């Protein structure tokens, strides 16, 4: 881990019409760390992710990726700046093969135009070959090569997750945002997911930022955790600090008297 910052969010505030979804969120992701963003349902975690990936333009505040301001840019431009993400509910193109899923996600570095495709030029051939080679290499790395020509809808849920993460990595990202990677997985799959994320982190040397409800996943993986509730940050710190934070316990368990 170095001191280099990958993602900085300053005073991020977002309103949906009259609804104040986020108030003054500040984030500082250091290169190479695994950071967590947690909070009860409806706290605004996914909204933060959607703002970073460009689906909404923030009402106030700045989002900086490696020092460049990215708020207001289109999602595909942000993706081509090498920010990968997955979704809470898997969003693969389920009627296209796994290989096609991976290839299409490399559109950002497609070095040919429509005319090249029509006339089957040298540039077209070499670019397509490069993309397919990269896709195969990636699938092999992920042990998914035998699934390359399958349709995601025919794959088990756990494998679909892995394919989705592999697809996000085909963007060659420096920052990988995982939105509830454990959602829908059984508890026995969790330890597998943990080692899987750890393996990705080590192999690709990237920064991971994740939203998760499974405390087991968050507490074992994350170096640093931020907690939001009702669109406001209520705590930040290491997993140990968070586990003992009174505000966090209150947010998760409620404010009732326990005796």
């Amino acid at each position, binding site marked *: 881990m170095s001191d280099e910052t990958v993602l900085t969010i300053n005073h991020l505030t977002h309103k949906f019409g009259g609804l104040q979804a986020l108030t003054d969120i500040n984030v500082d992701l250091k290169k190479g760390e695994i950071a967590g963003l947690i909070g009860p349902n409806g706290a605004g975690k996914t909204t933060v992710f959607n703002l970073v990936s460009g689906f909404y333009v923030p009402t106030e505040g700045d989002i900086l990726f490696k020092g460049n301001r990215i708020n207001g840019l289109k999602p*595909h431009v942000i993706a*081509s700046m090498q920010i990968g993400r997955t*979704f809470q509910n898997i969003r693969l193109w389920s009627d296209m093969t796994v290989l096609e899923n991976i290839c299409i996600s490399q559109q950002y570095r497609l070095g040919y135009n429509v005319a090249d*495709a029509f006339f089957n030029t040298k540039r077209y051939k070499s670019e397509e070959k490069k993309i397919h080679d990269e896709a195969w290499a990636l699938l092999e790395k992920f042990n998914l090569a035998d699934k*390359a020509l399958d349709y995601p809808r025919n794959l088990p849920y756990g494998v679909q997750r892995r394919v989705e993460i592999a697809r996000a990595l085909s963007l060659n990202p420096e920052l990988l945002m995982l939105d509830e990677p454990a959602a829908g997985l059984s508890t026995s799959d969790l330890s597998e997911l943990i080692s899987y994320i750890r393996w990705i982190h080590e192999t690709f040397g990237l920064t991971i930022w994740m939203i998760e409800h499974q405390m087991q996943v968050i507490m074992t993986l994350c170096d640093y955790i931020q907690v939001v509730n009702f669109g406001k940050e209520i705590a930040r710190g290491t997993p140990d600090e968070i586990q003992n934070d009174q505000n966090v316990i209150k947010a998760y368990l409620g404010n009732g008297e326990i005796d």
Partner: protein
Amino acid sequence: MKNKSKKFIVPAITAAVMVLVVILAQLDILNNYYQTILMTICINVIMSSSLNVVNGYMGEFSCGHGGFMAVGAYVSSVLSLVLFCPGNSITGKALLPPESAMFLFPVVILLGGAASMVVSLLVAIPSFKTRDDYLAIVTIATNFIITTSLNNIGIVGESRGLMGMKSTLSRMSGVIDLPWILIWGMLFAALTVYAIHRLMKSTLGQGISAVRYDEISAEIMSVNTNKMKLIAFTFSSGLAGVAGGLFAHMLGFINPSSFGIMKSTESLVMVYLGGMGSLSGSVLSAFIFTILLELLRPAQIFKWVIIPLMLILIMQFRPEGIMGPRELPQVFPKLRKLFPVNSDMVRKNQTGGEA
């Protein structure tokens, strides 16, 4: 290189069939009536497979294809009249020597297509923000804008329409006596199918399908969805314009009412009959649809009771259309040998690969 030689089988068969048709037409075995049917099939192949790019591959619902056909038909007709036909209804004299029609005819047709591409921006730009039913309304509106405008432009004959394009064809036959419109019709139809095949096979074109399956994840995975929509709409409309140009020259007469919502519906019917997102389905359904319409000609106006009824039955019992989303090689695996198109998708040392 076995694969290399196989690559040429399909184009070779296509070329052979075209040459055969031209020879038969030349020997008058294929009379004018059958030539016209063949020509209509070619035009319908272009119409249905191009609409399939938007409605099938991209999953949008465009019902204004007839409008873009009209733009192509009118632009190429006006060009053809002004350039090659002395005594035409617009300028009264030809700008170029009539013999040049021989070489410039395809250019005129393509210019019609280019004009349609420009007009298709009327649909493509709203499509950045609107989807589904709302975009369908935009496309219908565009169709009306185009036909109503043509109905009110004096120079192209208002609702009476334009005529005289046949003389361009007779000029061409005057140089070399061949069934030129049939030749160009078949060539443009084959090129259309080839171009769509190339586009949809490329990783760039597959971005269009990604928009259909999930637009949000397409954006997140670096696919410029606006660019994809622009490509799909302009490409599809441009081809409709080409079909329009051929149509105008085949009939030698056009008026705005030929390109109304009825024409757009016909194209829609062919796409849904063939199967959304299936290029071979679109081609097949263009054949079936045209021949069916011709066979039902004796039924006269009841034709338009029988055909919609068939549509209802198809939607009931085979809603995915003749081919579904599949292509011919997927239905008949033996044909796969002829289309080594996906060979780059299968790795040579791939173990689990394609069955």
